[in-house]
């Protein structure tokens, strides 16, 4: 059970791991360069990074990006975070093998 916590609320999201399990069943991320579009505070980012090849994550909100970076588990490689809008991704064509909108479309 992982949590997002701040001074006013404590949330445990996807307590049964259903989101990651269904994503992995649908798409074999182990071989894929993945971009997460609208990563928020990185809840899913770090869970998926255990399964995906080098990963990028974008979000227009700088505070949430910072929170996502700070939330990095020590045993996982870094994810390339960028402040950007989904309508203007700062990557050349064909940069990734998988793209995910998780609660962000």
């Amino acid at each position: 059970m992982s949590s997002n916590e701040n001074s006013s609320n404590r949330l445990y999201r996807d307590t049964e791991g259903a989101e990651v399990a269904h994503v992995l069943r649908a798409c074999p991320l182990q071989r894929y360069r993945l971009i997460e579009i609208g990563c928020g505070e990185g809840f899913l980012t770090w869970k998926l990074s255990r399964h995906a090849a080098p990963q990028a994550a974008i979000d227009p909100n700088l505070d949430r990006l910072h929170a996502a970076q700070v939330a990095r588990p020590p045993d996982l490689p870094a994810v390339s975070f960028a402040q950007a809008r989904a309508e203007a991704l700062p990557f050349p064509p064909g940069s990734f093998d998988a793209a995910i909108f998780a609660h962000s479309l």
Partner: protein
Amino acid sequence: MVHALKEAARVLSLEGCLIDMRPLSIDVPLEVASPSGWQSAGPVDMSPGVPTDLVADNAVLQVVKEGIIKRVSLDRFESAYVWDTYEAMQAYIEERWSPDVIVPPAVAERAQSLAASQPGGGPLRIRLVIQLGVYQRAPALF
């Protein structure tokens, strides 16, 4: 949303995988944990989010229709959001989900009553219905 989907397709390799995973605006129960299991306080009103769901669905359909992506699968499953206390849930909904999610007053009152009868005042959960659409980048130029 159409523009965002097209941008995602642009940065994908041909036959790359595009995943659209989001909660649907379907009324689901607000539940409070008890020694005998989860007890329902009543349904959460998700109806304000329905127009957004439709806009997103139509955006995906348009990009499919233009031949930029093709659908591989469309499934649903449940994902639980759990809070330690009623107050924590209320604060989260107000901060993150308002105005798309409404806890009706009668449901709020029952949830608070159920939570107050538990040591620690919780936990509470909402099991959202999540839609998972999987698409493949197709050869259409744009």
